[in-house]
């Protein structure tokens, strides 16, 4: 797995906050760096890949760990 430059804990947050926080964290990274995000909100789980695609970032990996969904997103 690619080393994440930053880990964002968005567990327990409801829409739209997981994506809002992810975007903010992403803005602070450099191009090519990877952000790891942990999410529990069902809606956000579907929105995260759609957001990444719409904003040109690459969703490298997505795993499920019980109720927690983890995303690794590489900054464009």
């Amino acid at each position, binding site marked *: 797995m690619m080393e994440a430059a930053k880990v964002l804990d968005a567990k327990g947050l409801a829409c*739209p906050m997981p*994506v809002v926080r992810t975007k903010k964290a992403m803005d602070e990274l450099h191009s090519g760096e990877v952000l790891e995000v942990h999410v529990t909100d069902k*809606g956000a789980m579907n929105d995260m890949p*759609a*957001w990444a695609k*719409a904003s040109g970032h690459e969703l490298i990996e997505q795993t499920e760990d019980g109720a927690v969904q983890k995303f690794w997103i590489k900054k464009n």
Partner: protein
Amino acid sequence: MSLKRMTSQELAHKVINGDRLFILDVRNTDEFDHWRIEGKGIEIINEPYFNLLEGVDHLAKSLPKDEPILTVCAKGGSSEFIGEQLVDAGFEQIYSLEGGMKAWSEHLEPVKIASFDHGGALYQFVRLGKGCLSYMLVSDGQAAVIDATRMIDVYQDFAKKRSLTIKYIFDTHLHADHISGGRALAEAIGASATYYLPPKDAEEVTYSYEPLVEGHNVVVGQSKINVQPIYSPGHTIGSTSFVIDDKYLLTGDILFVESIGRPDLAGKAEAWVADLRETLYNTYQQLSKELIVCPAHFSHMSEMDGTGAVKATLGELFKKNEGLQVHDEETFRKMVTENLPPQPNAYMDIRQVNMGKHKPNIEQQREMEMGPNRCAVHYKLRRME
């Protein structure tokens, strides 16, 4: 100016009245394409909230300036977030749908569809967000509920306000598109209520029930409103219709206003085609054409009249419903077994829940029921949603 809120009930009244309303749906586009708010007066556009995090400027030109705009999302959080931004951008009449599509999907709107000569009434509970129809028959302080949704509080509150005792609870068949509230409602009421299910649909159920069979009529209230079950298989092997007071035909998922039931949701399309044909083209054909058909679903807002009710006479359906005009058996077989629309969301799991084999929590139940009902076969090129 500040953001205002709209409840599902307020939205339901607008949809039923055909009022003009502009909706901005901010869910992701897959969800929007799958399922959205519909209505005669509804103009709806989709822009996911995550495309608006930098601001709403690029969207502003697509939005009307001089009328209310309702923002909608899955649960109500993102629509508020975007709604606030629109208010900040100078829009003056911005509303957010409280509870989002989740609340919309669970809202039931009772519509009185009949008053009986000798007292009593029939109410259709319209689940606008999902296209499900359930019924309450009321007579003399007693009530019967047919095809109850899982929102059983709605029926209980309705009965309580009118001092009614719910005595009979029926499911016309084992549902595959939504979680039945029939058994839960019977349990909540206690020993005074009886839950009926067609035995042929109940072979795998894990709970006790009263068999719903032809020949065992039920009488509701002193004024004796007669409820007569008619075995009408095809959507499921047990599907049973009701004739109420010799005037109303509750068809379950066999016959709808603009379409007919699909035979494939229990995985037995080929085996059940002949039953479906027999029910529609023989059993129903022999009934009085004056009967008013009250189905368990609708797929299009065009099936709803100006009062919010979904019904039509059997005679009218034999003239207009395309599913009843297919005289060649082979054409009929192809129509109901080939090129069927996608099945309802999680339909296999929903059947398991309705059999009592699987007991999901409320969040999981909501998740399973997402999306339209998709219980109908529409002839020709009709779209399902």
